């Protein structure tokens, strides 16, 4: 199989418009590509360091996101703060299994699996683990694809606080857990963006 990469020939692919250009001064960086006026990088700058820092921050915030209440529902005087998990349990109690499953997947499973996947990607690139490259790229694309769906709970909170506003009878207010959770979603999405998938394949170069 032919395995010549753009880099092998000293070419940079513009990450915005996809066009190829020569790496004229051989520093892996070209300023202002004429077609899209974008900067061009042979590989994303400090990809691993940036992804590590975003991932670690997300992992730390994942704790308050799950422990702190995301909202408080007051219904006929009695109110209790809800975390993400307790909200799912309540849905199970009223028998809404599909919705409970959707929220469990979007708010708990996806962020967790995403962080684990990014961790595996980072470790495998950093320590040159011999894992299947195609599988890892597939994993990376899955991370990129599903990340946005974790925003689900944020929108639900926004809808509920705006709708349920009946003073002492029924009232929903948001909680600090929502901020932490929103940050986790954004940070993991950014981490997926800063990770350069080409690094997975680069090690082939050092082998030969």
């Amino acid at each position, binding site marked *: 199989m032919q*395995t010549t*990469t*753009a880099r092998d020939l000293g070419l940079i692919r513009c990450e*915005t418009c996809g066009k190829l250009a020569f790496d004229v001064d051989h520093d892996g960086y070209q300023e202002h590509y004429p077609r899209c006026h974008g900067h061009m990088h042979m590989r994303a700058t400090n990809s691993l360091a940036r992804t590590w820092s975003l991932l670690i921050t997300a992992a730390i915030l994942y704790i308050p996101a799950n422990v702190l209440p995301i909202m408080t529902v007051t219904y006929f005087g009695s109110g209790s703060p809800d975390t993400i998990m307790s909200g799912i349990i309540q849905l199970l109690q009223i028998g809404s299994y599909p919705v409970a499953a959707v929220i469990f997947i979007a708010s708990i499973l996806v962020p967790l699996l995403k962080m684990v996947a990014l961790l595996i990607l980072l470790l495998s690139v950093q320590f040159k683990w011999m894992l299947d490259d195609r599988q890892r790229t597939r994993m990376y694309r899955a991370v990129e694809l599903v990340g*946005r769906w974790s925003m689900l709970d944020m929108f639900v*909170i926004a809808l509920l606080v705006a*709708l349920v506003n009946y003073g002492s009878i029924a009232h929903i207010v*948001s909680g600090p857990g929502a901020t932490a959770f*929103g940050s986790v979603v954004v940070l993991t999405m950014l981490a997926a963006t800063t990770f350069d998938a*080409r690094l997975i394949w680069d090690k082939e170069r050092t082998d030969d």
Partner: protein
Amino acid sequence: MLTSIPGNWIACKDCDLLLERVATPPGGKALCPRCENPLYQHREQGIERTLALAITGLLLFIPANLLPVMSLQLIGQETSTTIYEGSLVLFREGLYWTALLVFSASVVIPLCKLLLMLFVSGYLYLERSSPLLPYAMRYYHHIDEWGMLEVYMLSVLVAVVKLKGMASVIPDVGLYCFIGLLLVTTLMSSLLDQDDVWEQIEHSQGRNPA
């Protein structure tokens, strides 16, 4: 040594493999042989479609955002909410960052995407040139994944189920406009051939500005 880059050379976004661009049959899709990343797709009349969808989307955007998406009835009183109101309430409750996030993903970014596409496809359709075209397309590319209307749609369904036991929930006119907007923007994104648009932008830069 390589002195010029052949026009049909491309590199895979995810594994940097150097490839030669070949024509795909109608409806065909080219995948990277090494990492299976979708490289490009065959599309026809891309610009007209994009322009039509951008205009439709903008027209739907107005009622979808100004009209209430759903109403709640409890003890004889009715409250309703629009898309942006949720962010406003969050802002008032002091969750500024969350409010900003929700507002951007559900209102600002979808609107910016529609406006940028209207600008780009409008200029290309009329065969005019503007020095701002590359910037518009670049910003579109960067904000693309941060518009989350489809996630918002699912959250409406979840909210309905959550409120079921508490009060009666009625879908409002805004919701139907919103569903239309969602369909239009999803079609616009999936039918958009970014390579083709860049090709045309590059081509248009040679023409005199409008």
